[in-house]
């Protein structure tokens, strides 16, 4: 019997739609850290993700992740605040490939367009750079509802 994929098609589409993504990691003293991610790609197995960060964030991220692989991604669509939390474990990192650049920039652009809907003009975001990027691979372990309000923090069904 086929098992239900961890990430549904609908959720995958949401994760690919161009979101505000904050990745939380931690060090050995349980001090949390965070970094913006510019794009995400759900793997075909629906159980793994690749998340793309500005390459300048890589040293801090990898310092934490290589010793402590736990990672959390809060993914939020600013205009509606629909949001979810992806918990996972770091599996690998690499430089983002040139073939991935168009998709990273598409998602970053979609995010900026969504910000325009809530009154943040594109002129304010022109300085943000998503390339060169570093790709962080992770295995998804849990998914949580994170749209603010009652029920936030409940496991996603």
């Amino acid at each position, binding site marked *: 019997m086929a098992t239900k994929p961890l990430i549904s098609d609908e959720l995958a589409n949401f994760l690919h739609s161009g979101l505000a993504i*904050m990745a939380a990691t931690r060090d050995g003293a349980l001090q*949390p850290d*965070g970094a913006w991610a510019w794009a995400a790609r759900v793997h075909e197995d629906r159980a793994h993700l690749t998340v793309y960060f500005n390459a300048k964030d890589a040293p801090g991220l990898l310092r934490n992740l290589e010793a402590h692989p736990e990672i959390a991604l809060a993914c939020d669509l*600013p205009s509606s*605040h629909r949001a979810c939390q992806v*918990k996972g474990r770091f599996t690998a990192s690499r430089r983002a490939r040139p073939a991935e650049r168009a998709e990273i920039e598409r998602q970053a652009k979609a995010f900026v367009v969504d910000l325009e809907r809530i009154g943040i003009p594109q*002129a*304010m975001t022109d300085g943000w750079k998503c390339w060169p990027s570093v790709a962080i691979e992770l295995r998804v372990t849990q998914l949580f509802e994170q749209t603010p309000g009652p029920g936030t923090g409940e496991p996603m069904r």
Partner: protein
Amino acid sequence: MIRLESLAACFQGLIPAWLCTCARDGTPNAAILSHVDYVDARHIALSFQFFNKSKRNIDENPQAMVRILHPDTLQSYALRLRFVRTETEGPLFESMRLRIEAIASYSGLKGIFKLLGADVYEVLSVTPIVHEVGLPRAAVAKAQAAGDARVPFTMKALQEFSEQIQQATTLDCLLEAILETLEKIFGFRQAMILLPGESPERLEMIASRGYPEGGVGSEVGFGEGIIGMVAEARKPIRIAGMLRQMLYANAVAQRARERGLCPEDRRIPLPGLANPESQLGIPLLVHDELVGVLCIESDEPYRLHEEDRAYLEVLGGYLAIAIQNTLLRERADEAEEPLPARHRPPAAAAPPPVRRARIEVAHYRTDECILVDGEYLVRGLPAKLLWKLLREHETEAQVEFTNRRLRLDKSLALPAFKDNLESRLILLRRRLEERCPEIRIVPAGRGRFRLELNTAVTLAERP
């Protein structure tokens, strides 16, 4: 370390922030925050509204990191934090609670979207994320210079404001002077003043400036929106980025409705801009008595600063005393004799061109309201007053009236103490200007006025 004060704009709720925490078992968590509050040079506060994962993590491990964005440049900063305490009362808690509940009441979420505690954190370090600046570098200095250039509350401006207010001899003139000087001297283009209405715990808008629809007579209950919250708490409230905070509150409302925790639509229509970005509500207090509420709005985010709140809170006390003194003086001077020339108001403007050759004014006794040609005009005491004036005009050709005579008229059943007659007359006069310019109430000196009809009026008494 970068001084927290220099990041004041980041603490206005204009751009959401992010909170990263970590559970004792090593699982990190990230969550969006609608607002980070500045407490002092070494502390910030986060609202605790739901028992969520972040809160549980902080209970287990007090370390946290917040990422904030500067609203003028979208420069990102990382604040390393250590949880210190949760406050459930006191000035910090109250200021956060009032802002959150004002937003909640706009979204129909009062009682659901509420502050449980103000979580205070010590800021251990502030690090700019140098490669995360949204505004291109060339524009950053310009944006910062524009922010620094704003200095509205100079001594000269305050003196001018005071002079204008002191010249007003009637409540009507005083309210106009307040709104006019707020715009001309301080640049606040949209403002309104609400005074207590006839019903307890309700305010009525008596004067406004800068709105396409005047809205005179609009009512606000205590606890409704920023004005109602200011009236209820008797404390000023400033909201700097309404749109984004409303988006957050609306997301909560949607979830609450899906779970049957709040009815479909509890939003209350309130006077003011349809979509304000900044709001500042100031209680007008004399000792503990609420004389009214001044509300200033703008469609620009972060138009109203903490400095504005502080200055206007002080001015609010002054305005409240001015309003109360003007009312007392008006009543004391309610003589039947003509006033000295220097106290006479300027000649009224020429009446507007007649729009209708004949109007029907209908008085509905049961509902105590007046309709003109089938359109609602006014209710309550202003309706009783207008009906009385029109009836006396019709039966006795009376055109000149005094407040004193109205106050003594038993048919109006005014309360013996604090009858609000002056504010009711202002409300009536302004409603007529907005909805029925064919009937005018023209001030004719302190405590007296004329009724002017610029069309044929048919009176109809209905049950």
